[in-house]
């Protein structure tokens, strides 16, 4: 992951200028300045390879999937199911039966909450999360708690934004049925020790769901090596389209779960007396899916692997190291999230300047950062700030852009005195 920048000596140097040529949007001028896009943790930009794959599908292959014998329907089905195999290989799942397409990470987590947790958990059961979760890995479980009476437990973090692992172990008990944790924190960048969490949870007899939305763009994820029961992620943080995401679930678990939405494609036979459900994975894909999104997601995975995910991670780690050092030199900047193991996310505040004002001043200089609570309001509360500014780095960011960020922050200091 990003914390480990080592590369094989024979690996070619990472040519960021060549990478940038794949992303036409990076040529945009913003308020008279070249765009400096430091918001990939919110949504990454798409390379031409993804844009072309989607255009090619829409231009030459579109029809509904699984529904016709005509040529285009066959082409669309082949593209759609081919992409599922692409996703399987990307995360090394055992079978395409275990790859469910969803609208994104949020929908994937809600699917598990409603089709697994809601049907199984009782009033004495517990779901364990951590204090650094995104709202998408908090609220679906709160809804299950309301529906079943089960309890939500929260493992604390320390002032660096790291999980208190021993405290998590203490909260893990015979009543814990599910541990749902982020692989990488979106607000703080913290990389969680998911291998150890999974081992501890399994030893306690609990299942584990990993919210991998912020992890898959920065690290090779092998769901079988991890031993995750459920793993979720989104296409648009991985240089793919919005509106498409993935739920990986172990076959045995998904097979035992009832469908969560009814409709076309998720059935084998329907009569007014009795309906039989389709096989995995289609049992969980009611209705016409986001076919072009799936095609774009597969192209994004091809793209990321063509650059090499380890090479991307090493590049981002260098930017993170540089930016961390540069920001530390600016008076009044406080980094929020200083974990020993971090992905390329820098959350910070500037004394005397509200993050919202900071966002506007940076934008006036073409620098795009996220400002706000990052859909992690409990994290903001923990650190006693209403919001932070967050710069996040992707495969296309440069050292020059770190310098642009630093210069824009200097401007903010100048404006506010």
């Amino acid at each position, binding site marked *: 992951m990003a914390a480990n920048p080592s590369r094989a000596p024979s690996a070619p140097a990472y040519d960021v200028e060549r990478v940038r040529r794949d992303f036409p949007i990076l040529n945009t001028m913003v308020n008279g300045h070249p765009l400096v896009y430091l918001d990939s943790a919110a949504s990454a930009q798409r390379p031409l390879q993804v844009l072309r794959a989607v255009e090619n599908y829409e231009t030459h292959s579109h029809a509904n999937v699984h529904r016709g014998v005509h040529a285009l329907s066959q082409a669309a089905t082949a593209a759609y199911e081919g992409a599922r195999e692409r996703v399987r290989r990307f995360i090394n799942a055992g079978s395409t039966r275990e790859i469910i397409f969803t609208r994104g990470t949020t929908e994937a987590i809600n699917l598990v909450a409603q089709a697994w947790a809601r049907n199984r958990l009782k009033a004495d059961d517990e779901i364990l999360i951590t204090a650094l979760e995104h709202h998408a890995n908090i609220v679906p479980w709160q809804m299950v708690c309301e529906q079943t009476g089960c309890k939500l437990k929260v493992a604390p973090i320390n002032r660096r934004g790291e999980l208190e692992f021993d405290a998590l172990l203490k909260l893990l008990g015979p009543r814990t049925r599910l541990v749902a944790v982020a692989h990488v924190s979106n607000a703080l960048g913290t990389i969680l020790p998911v291998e150890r969490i999974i081992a501890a949870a399994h030893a306690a007899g609990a299942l584990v769901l990993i919210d991998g939305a912020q992890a898959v763009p920065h690290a090779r994820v092998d769901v079988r090596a991890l031993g995750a029961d459920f793993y979720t992620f989104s296409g648009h943080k991985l240089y793919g389209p919005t509106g498409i995401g993935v739920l990986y679930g172990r076959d045995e678990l998904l097979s035992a779960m009832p469908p969560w939405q009814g409709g076309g494609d998720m059935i084998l036979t329907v009569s007014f007396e009795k309906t039989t459900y389709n096989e995995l994975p289609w049992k969980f894909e009611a209705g016409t899916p986001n076919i072009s999104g799936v095609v774009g997601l597969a192209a994004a995975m091809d793209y990321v692997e063509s650059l090499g995910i380890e090479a991307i991670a090493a590049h981002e780690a260098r930017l993170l190291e540089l930016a961390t050092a540069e920001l530390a030199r600016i008076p009044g900047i406080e980094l929020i999230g200083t974990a020993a193991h971090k992905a390329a996310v820098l959350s910070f505040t500037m004394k005397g300047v509200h993050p*919202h004002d900071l966002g506007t001043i940076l934008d006036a200089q073409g620098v795009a950062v996220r400002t706000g609570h990052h859909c992690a309001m409990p994290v903001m509360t923990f650190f006693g700030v209403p919001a932070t500014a967050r710069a996040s780095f992707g495969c296309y960011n440069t050292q020059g852009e770190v310098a642009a960020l630093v210069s824009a922050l200097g401007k903010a200091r100048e404006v506010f005195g």
Partner: protein
Amino acid sequence: MDLKDLYRDVILDHNRRPRNFGRIEAPDGRADGHNPLCGDQLSVFVRLAGERVEDIRFEGKGCAISTASASLMTEAVKGKDRAAIRELFERVHTLLTQADAPPDIGLGKLAALSGVREFPVRVKCASLCWHTLNAALEHGNATISTE
């Protein structure tokens, strides 16, 4: 888009030293305003003498635009009656949203907010306090949100 147009000296001064900052105990009206997009939160307290706002205070956390706008608002409305405040809100709203609005000389220091209209995502920051005051005057006790 000129930052100096948004962050004028008057704005920066009222952000650093907000006027009428604090609470009124046992107010005749209070309301809480919230902008979930950026986390701005403010409360407005009013004491009335008939139709007239005799005293007004606010407290909360927010960006420079929202803090300065609230501070400027409290100065502008103190001593005015409800009808005059409604009229003033209309004029401020025009100032914040209409790019081609002619200069409104009578607005005094509130005119310093005119730069906000070049930054559409920031209009809510400047108008939050006015909506909150409105709620405090209309309902006596209310919570409002920009979203």
